[in-house]
């Protein structure tokens, strides 16, 4: 029973992070048909933000906020510099461009910072446990759980209550029509990248908080997870991305908890095998809203 409670908490915490990872990818894909490989490097930017800002005497929470802002700005700049000029080409060209951007940023970090992992300053809270009864819970799990829910709530409000948010969702349905209503394409796309950067920033806090280290390729694993979660949820659905993230979180924790290590070694292989399977058999993802199915 206690094992189960611990499992649920860790799974919810991990799932929340995965959901944010997937959202950052899907919000851009829905609008531009760009599968942004360089999304992981936004996480890297926030990670190095933690490292650099962390050297100042600022309180950690300020360091964290600055790092998230850094990722957000990096997302917007990335769009402006690399993706806007190739915006009207094919999805394949966009994907290849993002692959190049990803490599570029990683190598810039390699060159200017260090190829080796660095440990940014993290609050002690991140390594402490709390014991309630016989249940031992990592505090960082609880914080991640709460913060991911808060981030999801902020995003929901933004997407439902602001015109830019509405325009983002509308553009995913029909970009041309959105523009015909007077919404500027550049603003919509820049906002999508800003949201993507914001998500990457939040993810970075906890992803790097878990391992305690940041290195040039730190964003690779999260971007792979985001791929899996968003393919499971259907690349075009924000709700699907969130659901895909949580499902993956529960799955990952479940496999880790209950499967023998020997089998777990093949976990990635099985996961990506499933990705191929879903893409081929159910390209719309495992979940898809009814009204979309009718409309298209």
């Amino acid at each position, binding site marked *: 029973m206690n094992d189960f409670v611990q499992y649920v908490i860790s799974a919810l915490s991990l799932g929340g992070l995965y959901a944010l990872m997937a959202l950052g990818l899907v919000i851009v894909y829905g609008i531009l048909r760009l599968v942004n490989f360089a999304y992981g490097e936004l996480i890297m930017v926030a990670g190095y933000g933690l490292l650099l800002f962390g050297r100042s005497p600022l309180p950690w929470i300020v360091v964290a906020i600055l790092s998230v802002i850094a990722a957000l700005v990096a997302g917007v700049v990335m769009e402006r510099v690399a993706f806007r000029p190739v915006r009207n080409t094919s999805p*394949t060209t966009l994907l290849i461009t993002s692959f190049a951007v990803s490599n570029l940023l990683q190598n810039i970090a390699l060159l200017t910072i260090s190829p080796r992992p660095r440990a940014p300053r993290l609050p002690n809270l991140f390594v402490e446990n709390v014991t309630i009864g016989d249940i031992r819970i990592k505090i960082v799990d609880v914080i991640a759980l709460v913060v991911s829910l808060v981030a999801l709530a902020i995003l929901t409000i933004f997407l439902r209550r602001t015109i830019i948010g509405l325009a983002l969702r509308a553009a995913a349905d029909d970009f041309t029509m959105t523009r015909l209503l007077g919404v500027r394409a550049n603003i919509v796309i820049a906002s999508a990248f800003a949201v993507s950067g914001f998500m990457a920033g939040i993810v970075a806090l906890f992803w790097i908080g878990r391992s305690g280290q940041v290195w040039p390729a730190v964003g690779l694993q999260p971007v792979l997870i985001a791929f899996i979660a968003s393919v499971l949820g259907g690349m075009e659905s924000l709700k699907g991305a969130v659901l895909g993230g949580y499902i993956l979180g529960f799955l990952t924790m479940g496999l880790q908890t209950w499967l023998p290590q020997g089998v777990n070694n093949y976990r990635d292989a099985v996961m990506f095998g499933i990705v191929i*399977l879903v893409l081929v058999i159910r390209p719309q993802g495992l979940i898809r809203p009814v009204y979309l199915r009718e409309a298209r």
Partner: protein
Amino acid sequence: MSALQSSAASLRRLSTPAILVAVLGVIALITELRGDVVFERVVTVMLINLLLAVALQVFMGNSGLGSFGQYSFVTIGAYATIWFSLTSTQKRVALPDMPREWWLYKQHLGFVPSVLIGAAVATVVGALIGVALVRLRGASFTIATFAFLIVVNRVALQWEEVTRGSRTVIGIPKYTGLWTALTWAAIAVVVAFIFKESPLGLKLRASREDEDAAASLGVNAALMRWVAFVLSVFLSGLAGGLWAHFIQQFSPHNFYLKETFLIVAMLIIGGAGSVSGAVFGAIAVALTSEWLRQIENWVNIQRSTETTIGNMIPFQLVGFTEIIVAVAMISVLIVRPSGLTGGREIVWPAGGLRRRRDRAVVPSEAGSGVGPS
């Protein structure tokens, strides 16, 4: 058009593989004459990468789809080759986890048959997974190939009996030299060219422009994509076997994203639309990288010996080459998406015959009306 003109035109078209092979031959000859061991290594690696770029062109250039999964087949080709090329004694060192009672353990073949078998194993896997993959288009296809790269990579890292897991396979004899690499690269160029100009290649490229129109003419685009994919896989597997016997030691870590990126960069920079693009992209990237690496080394020596110049440079130059390649690739994608060759084949200079230039990496899917513009 008179018969004379038409045969002149087709002759000029056939001049493409001849010119490309001649260029490679000249490079190899110069390398041989220089007698510089380091430079010979550089050129040999370049030729193997060129073979990979050409292999990728066979699929990407004709189908218009992007593949990030090529190195999954290089992995399979490399390991499958050494299963056969190594003697039992060599396997005891290179693949110590392979059970002695296995049939595979006792096999030993010559270099060329082993490489061909290695490529064949990769081809079988590619043909099977290809059946599923060719049903996909656009970004989904690329993501699926990338997923397959990860699957193969993880399996290779775990399946110690046949790969020694994440540890480096060592003690592989060096069979691949400059001229071997040249021969296979030249064969690949010719094969890629023949495929491109074959009725199948032509139809595939036509279907890339408009799959529905092609289907109405009875062209099965998915089937043709599959054929191109399988041919591409075969050439990639071949490159894996050659590389294994050149580098002499490797692990699954040598077949992953960095390597994938390099080949994709070569093809994009050169121009995915033509075999010439793959060849020139590979040469340009390889030689530029080598030159940059020399600068990198020189700078780092200056730094470590703390000369005046060395003290002015704030960091060790690591990844500098990759940065330049990535910047070059992004610039090409923005400024000239059809690559340096513009998607055209190089032909024997003569007026008249001019190739139409492809405007994008993937012309068919380009710009759906206004979209985001």
